[in-house]
């Protein structure tokens, strides 16, 4: 395999542009400027890494996000940084031809290729809910994982389960780490993950030939080390106690904090507040909608999305902890008074010893 620099040269990139590129991606990977020489050296010497990208039960929003990466351009990553050998959604070839190619790449680079998984395997009915090339996806996944150096779990599907695993999970969809247990897995959750986070993770892995530092949940620390709430530009309104009450009120126009209309920013780890989307153009909160917590485990079941507190199942009624609590407290006070009177009656007529 050729090195990145060689690949760049082949594409007619000047040394100057190559250096600019190295500086930019160093920043995007969350590394200090002092790391630039290391990044340049790595790009000059490291061979490009073969990547096999497979698709399970999913909506393909991760791929949609990835191809919009602006820094670096997804095309740069795919054409120069990695050698994307198999991607049944993006590749022109299809059917047996690509399957044969996948097997060949696996054999040629056994132990050296990266497996990127988008979507997840449904286990119900022996995996019949998702068929790839005539076989259940779960087998496709296990087979492809066998010779991989590491696995990237793209998005909330592969990392946590996401919508298809939400209650009642009719297809028994499970995240990748429930099926593959003997390989390092990098979770890159989000529905979808931010494009630049995806390319950032890939670049880190190919440039440094190791997996990025992960937190206790297996997510790269440099991209999932902050809550949206702690980086949100509306935080000043939160601290001041200035909240949007309805999406059509004055406060919404003024751009106040979306906490009371259900924003999950306080409990969600992602880069939306700092890197933002579309090359830093905007993110959901900036466009006036609360975060729904798409990068968190089980976020579909933590609704309603437009309320701060979850519902408590009370028959025939919408209810949350504060309503139930207040009723229970009132009942306790009432009960105490009634019980007190009853005690008085029960004990009346008794003489003291």
């Amino acid at each position: 395999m050729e090195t990145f620099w060689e690949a760049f040269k082949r594409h007619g990139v000047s040394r100057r542009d190559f250096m600019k590129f190295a500086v930019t991606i160093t920043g995007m990977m969350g590394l200090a400027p002092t790391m630039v020489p290391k990044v340049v050296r790595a790009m000059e010497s490291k061979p490009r890494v073969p990547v096999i990208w497979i698709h399970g039960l999913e909506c393909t929003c991760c791929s949609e996000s990835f191809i919009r990466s602006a820094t670096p351009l997804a095309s740069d990553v795919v054409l120069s940084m990695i050698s994307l050998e198999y991607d049944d959604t993006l590749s022109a070839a299809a059917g047996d031809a690509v399957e044969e190619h996948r097997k060949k790449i696996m054999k040629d680079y056994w132990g050296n290729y990266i497996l990127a998984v988008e979507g997840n395997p449904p286990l119900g009915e022996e995996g019949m809910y998702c068929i790839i090339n005539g076989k259940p996806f779960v087998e496709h996944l296990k087979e492809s994982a066998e010779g991989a150096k590491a696995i990237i779990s793209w998005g909330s599907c592969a990392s946590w389960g996401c919508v298809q695993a939400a209650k009642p999970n009719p297809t028994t969809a499970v995240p990748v780490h429930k099926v593959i247990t003997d390989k390092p897995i990098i979770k890159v959750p989000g529905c979808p993950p931010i494009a630049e986070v995806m390319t950032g993770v890939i670049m880190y892995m190919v440039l440094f030939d190791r997996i990025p530092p992960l937190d206790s949940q297996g997510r790269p620390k440099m991209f999932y080390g902050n809550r949206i709430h702690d980086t949100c530009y509306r935080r000043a309104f939160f601290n001041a106690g200035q909240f949007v009450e309805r999406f059509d009120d004055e406060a919404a126009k003024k751009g106040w904090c979306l906490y009371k209309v259900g924003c999950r920013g306080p409990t969600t780890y992602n880069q939306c507040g700092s890197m933002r989307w579309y090359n830093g153009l905007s993110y959901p909160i900036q466009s006036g909608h609360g975060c729904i917590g798409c990068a968190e485990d089980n976020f579909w079941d933590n609704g309603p999305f437009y309320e701060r507190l979850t519902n408590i199942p009370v028959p025939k009624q919408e209810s949350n902890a504060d309503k139930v609590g207040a009723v229970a407290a009132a009942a306790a006070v009432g009960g105490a008074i009634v019980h007190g009177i009853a005690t008085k009656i029960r004990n009346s007529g008794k003489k003291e010893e």
Partner: protein
Amino acid sequence: MKEYKRFYIFSPSLRIWHWINFLSIMVLFATGIYIGNPFFIGSQGVEAALVHGQSLTMGLIREVHFIAGYILLASFIFRMLIALIDGRDRLFIPKVWKSEFWSRLGETLQEYALVKDSSEGSLQIRNPLARTAYFLVYIAILFMIITGFGMYGMSDPSGFWASIFGWVVWSLGGEFPTHMWHHWVAWLIILFAIVHVYLVIREDFTKKTGEVSSMFNGYKFFKKEPADLKELK
């Protein structure tokens, strides 16, 4: 009529702890409910960046919650230490391995169900039902401390508090469920407090043991020696 005798029950440390605990939980509950649902807005028409110090803000209320949280943590550690040091301060342990525990539990339940009247049954400084309830409340407080400092610390996942309590966030299924658990158990503690206050006053009225004042001066009053007094010796 037999005379009441005075028995020394609660140590000064325990009494001081009790009231600090009470105050911090009241502050934590009031501020916590506001954090969960900021129902009044105190700072309309003021520049967000300048509002701090001008009126009651979310920032200030959270700060008070966290300060009270630190006090609760400190007082909880203090409470555990005095229980370790002095047998007198260990009355919250339900002695489920003893047969008296179960027979007296039955007696107390019958009394509260008004099957028996309050003069029947054996005298106790602390009945098994109360012990069980207090034990559960200590666990609930510990739960609030762990979840509270877990959420508090996760603004820096590699920092000090997260390294101690961060795990709880993941064992409860993520940070959002942790907020909800913290919220639900807050209500449970308040329900306990209501029933607790009622039963203490009831005890005082029906048995004239000086139950209410005992948490101020340390003494309870009985005509005979209560059955579990030997635990204090």
